[in-house]
Protein backbone atom coordinates (compact mmCIF):
# COMPACT_ATOMS: atom_id res chain seq x y z
CA UNK A 1 0.00 0.00 0.00
CA UNK A 2 2.68 2.40 1.06
CA UNK A 3 4.87 1.40 -1.87
CA UNK A 4 2.05 1.93 -4.35
CA UNK A 5 1.43 5.39 -3.01
CA UNK A 6 5.12 6.20 -3.21
CA UNK A 7 5.26 5.02 -6.81
CA UNK A 8 2.27 7.12 -7.68
CA UNK A 9 3.94 10.15 -6.13
CA UNK A 10 7.18 9.49 -8.01
CA UNK A 11 5.25 9.24 -11.23
CA UNK A 12 3.58 12.55 -10.60
CA UNK A 13 6.93 14.19 -9.92
CA UNK A 14 8.33 12.70 -13.14
CA UNK A 15 5.43 14.02 -15.18
CA UNK A 16 5.68 17.47 -13.63
CA UNK A 17 9.44 17.59 -14.21
CA UNK A 18 9.23 16.50 -17.85
CA UNK A 19 6.39 18.92 -18.54
CA UNK A 20 8.52 21.73 -17.15
CA UNK A 21 11.44 20.76 -19.42
CA UNK A 22 9.16 20.59 -22.47
CA UNK A 23 7.71 23.96 -21.53
CA UNK A 24 11.26 25.33 -21.37
CA UNK A 25 12.08 23.81 -24.78
CA UNK A 26 8.96 25.09 -26.49
CA UNK A 27 8.43 28.44 -24.78
CA UNK A 28 10.52 30.59 -27.16
CA UNK A 29 9.13 28.70 -30.14
CA UNK A 30 5.58 29.44 -28.96
CA UNK A 31 6.53 33.10 -28.52
CA UNK A 32 7.81 33.24 -32.11
CA UNK A 33 4.65 31.58 -33.42
CA UNK A 34 2.34 33.77 -31.34
CA UNK A 35 4.04 36.96 -32.47
CA UNK A 36 3.48 35.99 -36.12
CA UNK A 37 -0.24 36.65 -35.49
CA UNK A 38 0.39 39.95 -33.72
CA UNK A 39 -1.46 42.89 -35.31
CA UNK A 40 1.12 45.42 -34.09
CA UNK A 41 2.69 47.58 -36.78
CA UNK A 42 5.22 49.61 -34.79
CA UNK A 43 8.75 48.70 -33.76
CA UNK A 44 9.91 46.71 -31.84
CA UNK A 45 6.75 44.73 -32.57
CA UNK A 46 6.36 43.45 -29.04
CA UNK A 47 3.10 44.74 -27.59
CA UNK A 48 0.11 42.63 -28.46
CA UNK A 49 -2.38 44.50 -30.64
CA UNK A 50 -4.76 41.72 -31.54
CA UNK A 51 -4.88 38.72 -33.83
CA UNK A 52 -4.20 38.93 -37.55
CA UNK A 53 -3.12 36.83 -40.52
CA UNK A 54 -1.73 39.93 -42.24
CA UNK A 55 1.93 39.02 -41.72
CA UNK A 56 1.43 35.80 -43.66
CA UNK A 57 0.23 37.89 -46.61
CA UNK A 58 2.82 40.64 -46.23
CA UNK A 59 5.51 37.99 -46.14
CA UNK A 60 5.05 37.35 -49.87
CA UNK A 61 5.92 40.92 -50.75
CA UNK A 62 9.06 41.07 -48.59
CA UNK A 63 11.42 40.17 -51.39
CA UNK A 64 14.66 40.47 -49.40
CA UNK A 65 13.36 38.09 -46.73
CA UNK A 66 12.08 35.63 -49.33
CA UNK A 67 15.35 35.98 -51.23
CA UNK A 68 17.36 35.11 -48.12
CA UNK A 69 15.14 32.12 -47.51
CA UNK A 70 15.60 31.08 -51.14
CA UNK A 71 19.37 31.27 -50.64
CA UNK A 72 19.12 29.07 -47.55
CA UNK A 73 17.14 26.46 -49.47
CA UNK A 74 19.45 26.51 -52.52
CA UNK A 75 22.55 26.20 -50.31
CA UNK A 76 20.95 23.40 -48.30
CA UNK A 77 19.91 21.42 -51.38
CA UNK A 78 23.17 21.81 -53.29
CA UNK A 79 25.39 21.18 -50.26
CA UNK A 80 23.29 18.16 -49.25
CA UNK A 81 23.59 16.61 -52.71
CA UNK A 82 27.33 17.22 -52.87
CA UNK A 83 28.09 16.08 -49.34
CA UNK A 84 25.91 12.99 -49.72
CA UNK A 85 27.74 11.93 -52.89
CA UNK A 86 31.21 12.70 -51.52
CA UNK A 87 30.42 11.21 -48.12
CA UNK A 88 28.87 7.99 -49.45
CA UNK A 89 31.73 7.33 -51.85
CA UNK A 90 34.21 8.16 -49.11
CA UNK A 91 32.59 5.90 -46.52
CA UNK A 92 32.56 2.96 -48.94
CA UNK A 93 36.17 3.61 -50.03
CA UNK A 94 37.51 4.02 -46.50
CA UNK A 95 35.69 0.88 -45.40
CA UNK A 96 36.82 -1.25 -48.31
CA UNK A 97 40.27 -0.29 -49.46
CA UNK A 98 43.63 -0.28 -47.79
CA UNK A 99 45.66 2.80 -48.56
CA UNK A 100 48.26 5.04 -47.03
CA UNK A 101 46.89 7.81 -44.87
CA UNK A 102 43.63 6.03 -44.03
CA UNK A 103 44.17 6.66 -40.33
CA UNK A 104 44.84 10.32 -41.02
CA UNK A 105 41.64 10.71 -43.02
CA UNK A 106 39.67 8.96 -40.28
CA UNK A 107 41.12 11.30 -37.68
CA UNK A 108 40.57 14.44 -39.74
CA UNK A 109 36.88 13.62 -40.11
CA UNK A 110 36.38 14.42 -36.43
CA UNK A 111 37.80 17.93 -36.73
CA UNK A 112 34.66 19.64 -38.05
CA UNK A 113 32.64 17.74 -35.43
CA UNK A 114 34.62 18.76 -32.34
CA UNK A 115 36.29 22.09 -33.19
CA UNK A 116 33.96 25.02 -32.30
CA UNK A 117 32.10 26.31 -35.34
CA UNK A 118 33.51 29.79 -34.93
CA UNK A 119 37.03 28.48 -35.50
CA UNK A 120 35.93 26.60 -38.64
CA UNK A 121 34.17 29.79 -39.78
CA UNK A 122 37.14 32.11 -39.41
CA UNK A 123 39.54 29.48 -40.80
CA UNK A 124 37.44 29.18 -43.96
CA UNK A 125 37.14 32.96 -44.17
CA UNK A 126 40.90 33.45 -44.05
CA UNK A 127 41.58 30.80 -46.67
CA UNK A 128 38.86 32.05 -49.03
CA UNK A 129 40.06 35.59 -48.66
CA UNK A 130 43.67 34.62 -49.22
CA UNK A 131 42.81 32.53 -52.28
CA UNK A 132 40.79 35.48 -53.64
CA UNK A 133 37.63 33.44 -53.87
CA UNK A 134 34.77 35.98 -53.80
CA UNK A 135 32.60 35.31 -50.79
CA UNK A 136 28.99 34.44 -51.52
CA UNK A 137 26.96 31.48 -52.69
CA UNK A 138 30.01 29.44 -53.72
CA UNK A 139 31.88 29.84 -50.43
CA UNK A 140 28.69 29.19 -48.44
CA UNK A 141 28.11 25.94 -50.34
CA UNK A 142 31.74 24.82 -50.02
CA UNK A 143 31.71 25.53 -46.28
CA UNK A 144 28.46 23.69 -45.71
CA UNK A 145 29.78 20.69 -47.65
CA UNK A 146 32.92 20.67 -45.52
CA UNK A 147 31.07 20.38 -42.21
CA UNK A 148 28.36 18.02 -43.50
CA UNK A 149 30.53 15.35 -45.12
CA UNK A 150 31.77 13.80 -41.83
CA UNK A 151 28.20 13.32 -40.62
CA UNK A 152 27.23 11.61 -43.89
CA UNK A 153 30.27 9.35 -43.59
CA UNK A 154 29.45 8.41 -39.97
CA UNK A 155 25.88 7.54 -40.91
CA UNK A 156 26.85 5.46 -43.93
CA UNK A 157 29.66 3.79 -41.97
CA UNK A 158 27.20 2.71 -39.26
CA UNK A 159 25.30 0.94 -42.00
CA UNK A 160 28.44 -0.60 -43.50
CA UNK A 161 29.52 -2.21 -40.23
CA UNK A 162 26.71 -4.70 -40.54
CA UNK A 163 27.18 -5.17 -44.23
CA UNK A 164 27.69 -8.59 -45.78
CA UNK A 165 30.29 -8.32 -48.53
CA UNK A 166 29.40 -11.69 -50.00
CA UNK A 167 26.34 -10.30 -51.75
CA UNK A 168 28.65 -8.10 -53.80
CA UNK A 169 30.75 -11.10 -54.68
CA UNK A 170 27.59 -12.92 -55.67
CA UNK A 171 26.67 -10.01 -57.92
CA UNK A 172 30.05 -10.12 -59.60
CA UNK A 173 29.90 -13.90 -59.85
CA UNK A 174 26.74 -13.42 -61.81
CA UNK A 175 28.57 -11.21 -64.24
CA UNK A 176 27.92 -7.67 -63.04
CA UNK A 177 30.89 -5.34 -63.09
CA UNK A 178 32.02 -3.15 -60.23
CA UNK A 179 30.02 -0.07 -61.22
CA UNK A 180 26.79 -1.98 -61.79
CA UNK A 181 27.30 -3.80 -58.49
CA UNK A 182 27.78 -0.51 -56.70
CA UNK A 183 24.55 0.94 -58.04
CA UNK A 184 22.42 -2.21 -57.92
CA UNK A 185 23.65 -3.88 -54.73
CA UNK A 186 25.75 -1.62 -52.52
CA UNK A 187 23.66 1.54 -52.77
CA UNK A 188 20.27 -0.05 -52.01
CA UNK A 189 21.71 -1.75 -48.91
CA UNK A 190 23.25 1.49 -47.72
CA UNK A 191 20.18 3.58 -48.63
CA UNK A 192 18.86 4.10 -45.08
CA UNK A 193 22.27 5.28 -43.87
CA UNK A 194 22.61 7.56 -46.87
CA UNK A 195 19.12 8.98 -46.33
CA UNK A 196 19.86 9.56 -42.65
CA UNK A 197 23.14 11.28 -43.51
CA UNK A 198 21.52 13.43 -46.20
CA UNK A 199 18.78 14.50 -43.82
CA UNK A 200 21.34 15.46 -41.22
CA UNK A 201 23.36 17.39 -43.81
CA UNK A 202 20.20 19.23 -44.84
CA UNK A 203 19.20 20.23 -41.31
CA UNK A 204 22.78 21.20 -40.41
CA UNK A 205 22.90 23.46 -43.45
CA UNK A 206 19.53 25.09 -42.77
CA UNK A 207 20.36 25.64 -39.09
CA UNK A 208 23.86 26.96 -39.57
CA UNK A 209 24.40 30.47 -38.31
CA UNK A 210 27.99 30.76 -37.18
CA UNK A 211 29.98 29.43 -40.13
CA UNK A 212 27.72 31.16 -42.65
CA UNK A 213 28.15 34.41 -40.75
CA UNK A 214 31.85 34.48 -41.63
CA UNK A 215 31.86 33.24 -45.22
CA UNK A 216 28.70 34.83 -46.66
CA UNK A 217 30.03 38.09 -48.13
CA UNK A 218 26.98 39.99 -49.36
CA UNK A 219 24.80 36.91 -49.69
CA UNK A 220 22.26 36.70 -46.88
CA UNK A 221 20.80 33.45 -45.66
CA UNK A 222 17.59 33.42 -43.68
CA UNK A 223 19.18 33.10 -40.19
CA UNK A 224 21.67 35.85 -41.07
CA UNK A 225 18.80 38.08 -42.15
CA UNK A 226 17.17 37.52 -38.77
CA UNK A 227 20.43 38.23 -36.97
CA UNK A 228 20.80 41.50 -38.83
CA UNK A 229 17.37 42.73 -37.76
CA UNK A 230 17.36 41.50 -34.16
CA UNK A 231 18.76 44.67 -32.62
CA UNK A 232 16.22 46.95 -34.28
CA UNK A 233 13.24 44.64 -33.82
CA UNK A 234 12.28 41.76 -36.03
CA UNK A 235 9.12 42.44 -37.97
CA UNK A 236 6.49 39.71 -37.54
CA UNK A 237 6.66 38.58 -41.16
CA UNK A 238 9.93 36.93 -40.10
CA UNK A 239 7.95 35.16 -37.38
CA UNK A 240 5.39 34.13 -39.99
CA UNK A 241 8.12 32.59 -42.15
CA UNK A 242 9.66 30.90 -39.07
CA UNK A 243 6.27 29.43 -38.25
CA UNK A 244 5.94 28.00 -41.76
CA UNK A 245 9.46 26.54 -41.48
CA UNK A 246 8.54 25.07 -38.10
CA UNK A 247 5.57 23.30 -39.65
CA UNK A 248 7.94 21.89 -42.28
CA UNK A 249 10.35 20.76 -39.55
CA UNK A 250 7.59 19.02 -37.60
CA UNK A 251 6.54 17.26 -40.80
CA UNK A 252 10.12 16.16 -41.44
CA UNK A 253 10.59 14.88 -37.87
CA UNK A 254 7.39 12.85 -38.06
CA UNK A 255 8.40 11.50 -41.45
CA UNK A 256 11.78 10.30 -40.19
CA UNK A 257 10.58 8.94 -36.89
CA UNK A 258 7.71 7.02 -38.41
CA UNK A 259 10.33 5.12 -40.37
CA UNK A 260 9.59 6.36 -43.89
CA UNK A 261 13.23 7.28 -44.03
CA UNK A 262 14.65 4.95 -41.45
CA UNK A 263 17.67 6.90 -40.39
CA UNK A 264 20.49 6.28 -38.01
CA UNK A 265 18.41 4.98 -35.16
CA UNK A 266 17.57 1.77 -36.93
CA UNK A 267 20.25 -0.64 -37.96
CA UNK A 268 19.92 -3.56 -40.29
Amino acid at each position, binding site marked *: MKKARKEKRNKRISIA*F*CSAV*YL*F*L*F*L*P*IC*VVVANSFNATTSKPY*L*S*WKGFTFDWYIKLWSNSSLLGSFGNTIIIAIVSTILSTI*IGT*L*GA*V*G*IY*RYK*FKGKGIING*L*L*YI*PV*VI*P*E*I*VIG*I*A*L*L*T*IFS*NANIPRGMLTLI*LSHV*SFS*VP*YVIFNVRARLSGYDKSIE*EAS*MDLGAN*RVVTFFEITLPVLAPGIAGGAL*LAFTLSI*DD*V*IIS*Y*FVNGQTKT*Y*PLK*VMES*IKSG*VSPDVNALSTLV*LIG*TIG*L*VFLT*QSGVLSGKHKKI
Partner: protein
Amino acid sequence: MARKTTKHEFKSNTMPAIVTVGPVAILLLFLVVAPLIFVAIMSFCQTDEFYNVVYKFTASNYSKLISADYLKIYGQSLLIALITTVLCILIGYPFAYIIARTKSKKKQLFYMLVIIPFWTNSLIRIYGWRTFLGSSGWLNKLLVTLHIVGEPVDFLYKTGTTVLGMVYCFIPFMVLPLYTAIEKLDGSLLEASSDLGARPIKTLFEVIIPLTASGIFSGCLMVFIPCLGYFFVSNILGGGNTDMIGNLIERQFKSANNWPLGAALSIILILVTLLLVKIYQKLGGDMDSLGV
Protein backbone atom coordinates in the same frame (compact mmCIF):
# COMPACT_ATOMS: atom_id res chain seq x y z
CA MET B 1 49.63 -6.10 -55.79
CA ALA B 2 46.77 -8.47 -55.29
CA ARG B 3 48.21 -11.30 -53.29
CA LYS B 4 44.96 -13.07 -52.54
CA THR B 5 43.61 -12.93 -56.05
CA THR B 6 40.09 -14.20 -56.22
CA LYS B 7 38.79 -14.10 -59.74
CA HIS B 8 36.56 -11.08 -59.11
CA GLU B 9 39.13 -8.80 -57.68
CA PHE B 10 40.62 -6.29 -60.01
CA LYS B 11 44.32 -6.39 -60.55
CA SER B 12 44.61 -3.16 -58.67
CA ASN B 13 42.48 -1.35 -56.15
CA THR B 14 44.21 1.95 -56.77
CA MET B 15 41.68 3.34 -59.22
CA PRO B 16 38.54 2.57 -57.19
CA ALA B 17 40.23 3.81 -54.02
CA ILE B 18 41.10 7.10 -55.70
CA VAL B 19 37.61 7.52 -57.12
CA THR B 20 35.89 6.88 -53.80
CA VAL B 21 38.25 8.39 -51.25
CA GLY B 22 39.78 11.09 -53.47
CA PRO B 23 36.96 13.64 -53.14
CA VAL B 24 36.89 13.36 -49.33
CA ALA B 25 40.67 13.63 -49.17
CA ILE B 26 40.66 16.77 -51.35
CA LEU B 27 37.84 18.27 -49.30
CA LEU B 28 39.58 17.61 -46.00
CA LEU B 29 42.87 18.93 -47.35
CA PHE B 30 41.53 22.20 -48.78
CA LEU B 31 38.61 22.97 -46.48
CA VAL B 32 39.77 21.57 -43.14
CA VAL B 33 43.54 21.11 -42.93
CA ALA B 34 44.70 24.05 -45.05
CA PRO B 35 42.40 26.61 -43.36
CA LEU B 36 43.47 25.53 -39.88
CA ILE B 37 47.18 25.59 -40.77
CA PHE B 38 46.59 28.99 -42.29
CA VAL B 39 45.02 30.24 -39.06
CA ALA B 40 48.06 29.00 -37.17
CA ILE B 41 50.38 30.88 -39.55
CA MET B 42 48.25 34.01 -39.42
CA SER B 43 48.38 34.03 -35.63
CA PHE B 44 52.09 34.89 -35.97
CA CYS B 45 51.56 37.65 -38.54
CA GLN B 46 51.44 41.43 -38.24
CA THR B 47 49.02 44.00 -39.57
CA ASP B 48 49.84 47.28 -41.31
CA GLU B 49 48.17 50.60 -40.49
CA PHE B 50 45.19 49.71 -42.75
CA TYR B 51 44.63 46.47 -40.87
CA ASN B 52 45.86 44.42 -43.80
CA VAL B 53 47.64 41.22 -42.84
CA VAL B 54 51.39 41.43 -43.35
CA TYR B 55 53.18 38.11 -43.50
CA LYS B 56 56.00 39.00 -41.19
CA PHE B 57 56.74 37.04 -38.03
CA THR B 58 55.69 38.38 -34.67
CA ALA B 59 54.74 36.80 -31.38
CA SER B 60 52.98 39.95 -30.22
CA ASN B 61 49.49 38.54 -30.86
CA TYR B 62 50.15 35.90 -28.27
CA SER B 63 51.54 38.38 -25.76
CA LYS B 64 48.34 40.43 -26.19
CA LEU B 65 46.36 37.35 -25.23
CA ILE B 66 47.51 37.55 -21.64
CA SER B 67 46.20 41.04 -20.97
CA ALA B 68 44.07 41.38 -17.87
CA ASP B 69 40.91 42.18 -19.86
CA TYR B 70 41.26 39.03 -21.89
CA LEU B 71 42.08 36.84 -18.91
CA LYS B 72 38.85 38.00 -17.31
CA ILE B 73 36.92 37.01 -20.41
CA TYR B 74 38.55 33.55 -20.56
CA GLY B 75 37.59 33.02 -16.94
CA GLN B 76 34.06 34.20 -17.64
CA SER B 77 33.83 31.93 -20.71
CA LEU B 78 35.02 28.87 -18.84
CA LEU B 79 32.67 29.64 -15.98
CA ILE B 80 29.64 30.11 -18.26
CA ALA B 81 30.49 26.96 -20.22
CA LEU B 82 30.99 25.01 -16.99
CA ILE B 83 27.72 26.19 -15.41
CA THR B 84 25.93 25.46 -18.68
CA THR B 85 27.35 21.93 -18.78
CA VAL B 86 26.45 21.23 -15.16
CA LEU B 87 22.91 22.55 -15.60
CA CYS B 88 22.53 20.52 -18.80
CA ILE B 89 23.44 17.36 -16.86
CA LEU B 90 21.24 18.19 -13.87
CA ILE B 91 18.21 18.88 -16.06
CA GLY B 92 19.07 16.61 -18.98
CA TYR B 93 19.93 13.43 -17.09
CA PRO B 94 16.67 12.90 -15.19
CA PHE B 95 14.75 14.07 -18.24
CA ALA B 96 16.53 11.65 -20.60
CA TYR B 97 16.14 8.91 -18.00
CA ILE B 98 12.40 9.36 -17.65
CA ILE B 99 11.68 9.47 -21.38
CA ALA B 100 14.10 6.64 -22.21
CA ARG B 101 12.68 4.27 -19.56
CA THR B 102 9.01 5.14 -19.91
CA LYS B 103 6.74 2.24 -20.72
CA SER B 104 4.21 4.61 -22.22
CA LYS B 105 3.19 4.09 -25.83
CA LYS B 106 3.89 7.76 -26.38
CA LYS B 107 7.64 7.24 -25.95
CA GLN B 108 8.34 7.99 -29.60
CA LEU B 109 6.30 11.18 -29.37
CA PHE B 110 8.31 12.25 -26.31
CA TYR B 111 11.48 11.68 -28.30
CA MET B 112 10.16 13.66 -31.27
CA LEU B 113 9.30 16.56 -28.98
CA VAL B 114 13.01 16.81 -28.19
CA ILE B 115 14.05 16.63 -31.84
CA ILE B 116 11.66 19.37 -33.04
CA PRO B 117 13.26 22.25 -31.11
CA PHE B 118 16.66 20.75 -31.85
CA TRP B 119 15.98 21.03 -35.59
CA THR B 120 14.54 24.53 -35.34
CA ASN B 121 17.08 27.23 -36.01
CA SER B 122 18.89 28.13 -32.80
CA LEU B 123 19.04 31.82 -33.68
CA ILE B 124 15.25 31.97 -34.11
CA ARG B 125 14.77 30.29 -30.75
CA ILE B 126 17.20 32.64 -29.01
CA TYR B 127 15.38 35.55 -30.58
CA GLY B 128 12.18 34.06 -29.11
CA TRP B 129 13.76 34.28 -25.67
CA ARG B 130 14.72 37.87 -26.30
CA THR B 131 11.11 38.68 -27.20
CA PHE B 132 9.94 36.96 -24.07
CA LEU B 133 12.47 38.38 -21.61
CA GLY B 134 12.99 41.97 -22.83
CA SER B 135 11.92 44.94 -20.70
CA SER B 136 8.89 45.41 -22.95
CA GLY B 137 8.66 41.65 -23.41
CA TRP B 138 5.83 39.34 -22.56
CA LEU B 139 7.11 38.05 -19.25
CA ASN B 140 7.25 41.62 -17.94
CA LYS B 141 3.75 42.35 -19.24
CA LEU B 142 2.55 39.32 -17.34
CA LEU B 143 4.42 40.20 -14.14
CA VAL B 144 3.21 43.81 -14.19
CA THR B 145 -0.38 42.79 -14.93
CA LEU B 146 -0.31 40.34 -12.05
CA HIS B 147 1.23 43.04 -9.81
CA ILE B 148 4.16 40.80 -8.99
CA VAL B 149 6.49 43.63 -9.94
CA GLY B 150 5.69 47.33 -10.17
CA GLU B 151 8.20 48.27 -12.84
CA PRO B 152 9.30 46.06 -15.75
CA VAL B 153 12.46 44.18 -14.86
CA ASP B 154 15.20 44.00 -17.46
CA PHE B 155 16.07 40.34 -17.61
CA LEU B 156 18.38 40.81 -20.58
CA TYR B 157 22.07 41.63 -20.53
CA LYS B 158 22.91 39.60 -17.48
CA THR B 159 25.19 36.59 -17.06
CA GLY B 160 22.22 34.51 -15.98
CA THR B 161 20.40 35.26 -19.23
CA THR B 162 23.37 34.15 -21.29
CA VAL B 163 23.58 30.94 -19.26
CA LEU B 164 19.85 30.39 -19.81
CA GLY B 165 20.32 30.81 -23.56
CA MET B 166 23.31 28.48 -23.60
CA VAL B 167 21.52 25.79 -21.57
CA TYR B 168 18.60 26.18 -23.92
CA CYS B 169 20.76 25.82 -27.04
CA PHE B 170 22.78 22.87 -25.82
CA ILE B 171 20.44 20.77 -23.71
CA PRO B 172 19.46 18.59 -26.70
CA PHE B 173 23.17 17.79 -27.20
CA MET B 174 23.18 16.40 -23.66
CA VAL B 175 19.80 14.70 -23.76
CA LEU B 176 20.27 12.79 -27.02
CA PRO B 177 23.49 10.86 -26.16
CA LEU B 178 22.12 10.23 -22.66
CA TYR B 179 18.87 8.93 -24.10
CA THR B 180 20.81 6.49 -26.28
CA ALA B 181 22.97 5.32 -23.36
CA ILE B 182 20.05 4.96 -20.94
CA GLU B 183 17.88 3.15 -23.44
CA LYS B 184 20.59 0.49 -23.81
CA LEU B 185 20.65 -0.03 -20.05
CA ASP B 186 19.56 -3.53 -19.12
CA GLY B 187 16.54 -3.27 -16.82
CA SER B 188 17.32 -6.58 -15.10
CA LEU B 189 20.51 -5.08 -13.66
CA LEU B 190 18.46 -2.45 -11.88
CA GLU B 191 16.11 -5.12 -10.55
CA ALA B 192 19.06 -7.22 -9.41
CA SER B 193 20.51 -4.25 -7.58
CA SER B 194 17.27 -3.53 -5.76
CA ASP B 195 16.62 -7.25 -5.08
CA LEU B 196 20.02 -7.43 -3.42
CA GLY B 197 18.91 -4.69 -1.09
CA ALA B 198 20.47 -1.59 -2.60
CA ARG B 199 18.56 1.59 -2.00
CA PRO B 200 17.51 3.47 -5.16
CA ILE B 201 20.14 6.14 -4.49
CA LYS B 202 22.85 3.48 -4.29
CA THR B 203 21.60 1.86 -7.49
CA LEU B 204 21.76 5.25 -9.15
CA PHE B 205 25.37 5.95 -8.21
CA GLU B 206 26.75 2.42 -8.43
CA VAL B 207 24.85 0.95 -11.35
CA ILE B 208 23.02 3.50 -13.48
CA ILE B 209 25.56 6.32 -13.65
CA PRO B 210 28.64 4.12 -14.27
CA LEU B 211 26.79 2.26 -17.04
CA THR B 212 25.71 5.47 -18.75
CA ALA B 213 29.01 7.30 -18.19
CA SER B 214 29.83 7.22 -21.91
CA GLY B 215 26.70 9.23 -22.64
CA ILE B 216 27.54 11.71 -19.89
CA PHE B 217 31.10 12.21 -21.18
CA SER B 218 30.11 12.71 -24.80
CA GLY B 219 27.25 14.99 -23.75
CA CYS B 220 29.61 17.14 -21.69
CA LEU B 221 32.05 17.46 -24.58
CA MET B 222 29.29 18.37 -27.01
CA VAL B 223 28.02 21.07 -24.65
CA PHE B 224 31.18 22.56 -23.17
CA ILE B 225 33.28 23.05 -26.32
CA PRO B 226 30.75 24.65 -28.69
CA CYS B 227 29.44 26.77 -25.81
CA LEU B 228 32.75 28.68 -25.76
CA GLY B 229 32.22 29.76 -29.36
CA TYR B 230 28.48 30.55 -29.47
CA PHE B 231 28.95 34.28 -29.71
CA PHE B 232 25.44 35.13 -30.86
CA VAL B 233 23.81 33.88 -27.67
CA SER B 234 25.83 36.27 -25.52
CA ASN B 235 25.42 38.99 -28.16
CA ILE B 236 21.64 38.74 -28.25
CA LEU B 237 20.88 37.89 -24.63
CA GLY B 238 23.98 39.20 -22.86
CA GLY B 239 24.35 42.33 -24.97
CA GLY B 240 28.11 42.67 -24.59
CA ASN B 241 28.09 42.30 -20.81
CA THR B 242 28.82 38.61 -20.88
CA ASP B 243 31.48 38.31 -23.56
CA MET B 244 33.02 34.95 -24.20
CA ILE B 245 36.05 33.83 -26.24
CA GLY B 246 33.71 33.49 -29.23
CA ASN B 247 32.74 37.18 -28.99
CA LEU B 248 36.40 38.22 -28.90
CA ILE B 249 37.15 36.21 -32.02
CA GLU B 250 34.04 37.46 -33.80
CA ARG B 251 34.97 41.08 -33.12
CA GLN B 252 38.51 40.71 -34.48
CA PHE B 253 37.13 39.39 -37.76
CA LYS B 254 33.99 41.48 -38.15
CA SER B 255 34.63 44.89 -36.61
CA ALA B 256 38.11 45.38 -35.13
CA ASN B 257 39.65 43.80 -38.23
CA ASN B 258 42.68 42.42 -36.50
CA TRP B 259 42.70 39.00 -38.10
CA PRO B 260 46.06 37.84 -36.68
CA LEU B 261 44.85 38.53 -33.14
CA GLY B 262 41.59 36.72 -33.88
CA ALA B 263 43.63 33.82 -35.26
CA ALA B 264 45.70 33.66 -32.06
CA LEU B 265 42.50 33.62 -29.99
CA SER B 266 41.20 30.78 -32.16
CA ILE B 267 44.36 28.81 -31.49
CA ILE B 268 43.48 28.92 -27.78
CA LEU B 269 40.07 27.44 -28.55
CA ILE B 270 41.67 24.73 -30.68
CA LEU B 271 44.10 23.85 -27.88
CA VAL B 272 41.30 23.72 -25.30
CA THR B 273 39.35 21.45 -27.66
CA LEU B 274 42.29 19.11 -28.25
CA LEU B 275 42.98 18.90 -24.52
CA LEU B 276 39.38 18.05 -23.69
CA VAL B 277 39.16 15.49 -26.50
CA LYS B 278 42.36 13.84 -25.19
CA ILE B 279 40.85 13.67 -21.70
CA TYR B 280 37.68 12.27 -23.17
CA GLN B 281 39.62 9.54 -24.97
CA LYS B 282 41.65 8.78 -21.82
CA LEU B 283 38.39 8.28 -19.94
CA GLY B 284 37.50 5.68 -22.55
CA GLY B 285 35.21 7.87 -24.61
CA ASP B 286 34.33 6.68 -28.09
CA MET B 287 34.80 9.29 -30.82
CA ASP B 288 31.88 7.82 -32.75
CA SER B 289 29.42 8.74 -30.04
CA LEU B 290 30.18 12.41 -30.60
CA GLY B 291 28.18 14.28 -33.15
CA VAL B 292 24.44 14.45 -33.33
